[in-house]
């Protein structure tokens, strides 16, 4: 094959390679049990399960890559179909092997159920042909999507994404909309009936069409709309902004009423992670100090409140303090712990810092668990009977009441961290992150700057832990495992290191979603791990990257803006 020909057609070797890699990923997804497990959930009732959604998505991406490797549009589609077929073939070989030989002793998920799932319950070989055909079709679809213009492609992927998300969260949406009489009919039409889960087929198509069309039209006109907004005089723009804040505020207040008991609980869990995320964002995102033992401060906050307020009568200290008295002490001790950790690691760089902070987190957890401190902080039996606090006449115990406490905490942390970000301290942290030596040579006092980062981060975490103590009513050392640190780290990385809105995005994705999909908890860390690796390669700045401040051209705005913030 001459090189000229090669330009016109596609690269066989590359296509084969992509198909094989895609197939291997598919096999891995099947063999770790994700297909079987995720098939318990429907995205579109009776039509498409979640397991198949994941597999199809892999096929689609395989097709996309294959199409990208090809030169012309026609060869893109052919290439993607070929790659998809190879994908299907690899999966078929797997199915065939699993069916023929019993390898369950080694690979626990190589079960007859898996074969049944992957062959559409049509048996071998009919099911295998269907599998290969599906691979070709979905791969080809990927190729077609790849050659579409950018804006259509984006509209389609957004439509598919939103439809999948709605299908996934069907139960929750249905439960929360059940409170509204009028909505129930529409809900019934949109979603599966009775015990069915997921969207109805018609509902899925509707969601897809509306979202895709909406996005297409919006991207066409967004610039006009925002330009129109820019044209408005300064003062009315400001009015709009205030109106926005006002609406947001109202939404925050009424959220628990709309969401109901369970979803409020999910929001609360997310809120605790947002609090920790905002803190760790200061340490890792702003100051660039990789802290893997962040959970320690969460533990200090929780244990302080637990020890000071509990009424169990089993510990040496039996104070039974009011929560509102214990809370500041919890935060203060967390800050102290932050400084105590900060001092020894002042001179350590990234890698050493990571291992020492990890060790610090483990030390705190082991001490909490130990028989040595059991008389004082409960050891493995934890601290029980932490009474709920009261605020005015309300006892803060139900998810709805806790919600306001957590929102207040989050708003406080949000306020503090955005104020700090835009100050001398924020600049110093970022300078530290970029180049520690030069930052010091610019006159930045490293000791103070680093300790302030640790202390502020620890304060937020301590606050989060203090709230956790009254939320659970009992605290166990097991709640403060390393995994919490990793979870918080993952969420700020996925959201965007150093980005405050990113913390919210990350927490919704990595704390809220998993809480809603608790039945798949087994795969949580697998997905986190893959997400971290992929993010670092594809989008190291996160989903909502840190914004840069325009300060020169908008110099005249800078002053009033600062004033507005103070109001």
């Amino acid at each position, binding site marked *: 094959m001459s090189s000229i020909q090669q330009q016109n057609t596609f690269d066989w070797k590359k296509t084969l390679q992509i198909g094989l890699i895609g197939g291997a990923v598919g096999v891995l997804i099947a063999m770790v049990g994700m297909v079987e497990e995720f098939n318990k959930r429907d995205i579109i009732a009776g039509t498409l399960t979640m397991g198949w959604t994941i597999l199809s998505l892999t096929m689609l991406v395989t097709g996309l890559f294959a199409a990208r490797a090809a030169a012309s549009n026609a060869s893109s589609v052919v290439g993607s179909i070929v790659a998809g077929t190879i994908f299907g073939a690899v999966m078929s070989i797997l199915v065939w092997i699993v069916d023929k030989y019993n390898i369950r002793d080694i690979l626990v998920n190589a079960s007859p159920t898996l074969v049944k799932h992957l062959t559409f319950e049509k048996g071998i070989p009919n099911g295998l042909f269907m599998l290969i055909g599906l691979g070709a079709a979905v791969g080809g679809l990927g190729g077609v999507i790849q050659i579409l213009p950018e804006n259509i492609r984006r509209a389609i992927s957004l439509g598919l994404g939103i439809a999948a998300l709605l299908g996934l969260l069907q139960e929750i949406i249905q*439960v929360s909309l059940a*409170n509204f009489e009028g909505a129930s009919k529409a809900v019934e039409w949109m979603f599966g009936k009775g015990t069915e889960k997921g969207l109805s087929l018609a509902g899925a198509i509707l969601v897809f069409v509306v979202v895709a069309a909406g996005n297409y039209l919006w991207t066409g006109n967004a610039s006009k709309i925002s330009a129109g907004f820019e044209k408005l005089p300064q*003062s*009315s723009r*400001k*009015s*709009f902004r*205030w*109106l926005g804040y*006002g*609406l947001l505020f*109202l939404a925050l*207040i*009424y959220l*628990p*009423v709309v969401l*109901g*008991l*369970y979803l*409020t*609980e*999910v929001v609360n*869990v997310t809120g605790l992670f947002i609090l920790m995320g905002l803190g760790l964002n200061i340490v890792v995102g702003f100051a660039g100090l990789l802290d893997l033992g962040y959970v320690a401060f969460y533990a200090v906050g929780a244990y302080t409140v637990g020890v000071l307020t509990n*009424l*169990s009568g089993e510990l040496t200290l039996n104070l039974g303090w009011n929560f509102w008295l214990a809370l500041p002490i919890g935060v203060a001790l967390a800050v102290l712990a932050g400084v105590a950790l900060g001092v020894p690691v002042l001179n350590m760089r990234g890698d050493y810092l990571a291992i020492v902070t990890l060790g610090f987190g483990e030390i705190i957890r*082991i001490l909490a*668990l*130990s*028989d040595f401190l059991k008389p004082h902080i409960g*050891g*493995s*039996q*934890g601290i*029980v*009977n932490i009474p709920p606090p009261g605020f005015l006449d*309300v006892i803060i*115990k*139900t*998810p*709805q*009441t806790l919600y*306001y406490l957590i929102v207040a905490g989050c708003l406080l942390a949000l306020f503090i961290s955005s104020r700090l970000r835009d100050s001398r301290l924020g600049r110093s942290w970022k300078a530290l992150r970029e180049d520690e030596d030069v930052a010091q040579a610019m006159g930045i006092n490293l000791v103070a700057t680093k300790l302030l980062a640790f202390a502020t981060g620890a304060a937020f975490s301590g606050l989060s832990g203090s709230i956790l103590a009254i*939320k*659970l*009513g*009992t*605290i*166990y*050392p*097991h*709640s403060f495992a390393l995994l919490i640190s990793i979870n918080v780290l993952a969420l700020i990385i996925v959201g965007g290191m150093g980005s405050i809105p990113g913390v919210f995005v990350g927490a919704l994705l990595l704390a809220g979603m998993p*809480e809603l999909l*608790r*039945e*798949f*908890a*087994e795969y949580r860390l697998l997905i986190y791990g893959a997400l971290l690796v992929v993010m670092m390669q594809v989008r190291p700045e996160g989903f909502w990257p840190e914004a840069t401040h325009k300060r020169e051209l908008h110099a005249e705005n800078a002053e009033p803006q600062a004033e507005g913030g103070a109001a």
Partner: protein
Amino acid sequence: MNKRLLALLSLLAIASMALAACGGGGAATEAATEAATEAATEAATEAPAAGFECTDAIGCVDIAPGDPIHIAYALTVSGATASLGEDSKGAIEIAIADRGGELVGHPIELTGEDTLCNAEGGQAAGTKISADATIIGVIGTNCSSEARAAMPLISQAGMVMISPSNTNPDLTDPTHSDHHPGYFRTAHNDLFQGRIAAEFAYNELGLKKVATIHDGSPYAESLQRVFAEVFAELGGEVTAQEAVNVGDTDMKPVLTSIAAGAPELIYFPIFEPEGNLIAAQSKEVAGLENVLLMGADGLFADTFPEATGSAASGMYLSGPYVDVNNEAYKAFLQKWADQIGGVPPSGFHAHAYDATNILLNAIEEVAVVDADGTVHIGRQALRDAIYAVKGFAGLTGTLSCDENGDCATGEALGVFQLSDAEVNGAWPPPVLWQP
């Protein structure tokens, strides 16, 4: 400035309109919380059918014709402790199937929450369950930490919960804050198991010196504590109460330090794989060559003797015991094999089966059926009915619930001894002693 003022005013206007829409009066927050907290009770007491007046102190559940009787499970069905949850869940399903899936003319609906064997999971599951006012009763939880976080919510919602495997003494201790009305268990309290293990060691084996090891789990820590207290009470000596961490593999240092006290038996009511490592390495430590080993139900699994090897031979295990010659139990195992396949993966299925039957019986007992088939169940009445259970003949023996919620008597416990047969794959081991 004028414009900003305008914006603020309009904001205020919107806020007040919203407040008015919500029924006005009081702060927004107050309205919000009230509305939400009352949602549960409201739904429960909503629109009683003609002819029935709910007089129950904490509300009634009304089931219209065709609607299901809704019960829930809160079990740890995923993760490292999944076998415990699956074990209970299977038994619940069998108990429901035994009644043809129906009760007082209504289908039984079972929904479930995964509790992950930690307090956070327990709280999330408890919240989700307590938010659903159609739920009458709950079977769960598996781990005691889950119950501590879930029970306040479930009790508050007026439901009952029967646990097949919570063993922590606090949960049924009326003086303890973790004791809530509406909580029952068919599992034996740790006080029973720790006691029989200690009695077995002191009275049956005639030992005078023992040591214990726990792994930092609340379960093991509490069990070894009871064991040590009872053993000392009986007149024996506890030479050491040591602890290891989950994930440790090197048990020799801790065993060497235990060897210094020269105990005759080591009691380690922990889990795999730390239990395997302790058993295996104990034989290699100078001074412990002939020490007796004793574990508890955490190690009562067919994988344990195989993975431990020859060191497991001769080891004692305390655990839930159901006589395999018991006809009812045989029938149960047969149903398991037919409906679920294989054998139950853990030791608390019989407890879960009994728990479900107690719940279903009580529902049947208190249900008020209208002419049109609508069923009303008083929540307090249901609780009272379960507190009043006496002499219930279950798989785990004759159960009677006391006023604190303890339904098990401790008679369904036994001490087993492993031999070379178990090391080579036989399971379960024969029971050696029963209190």
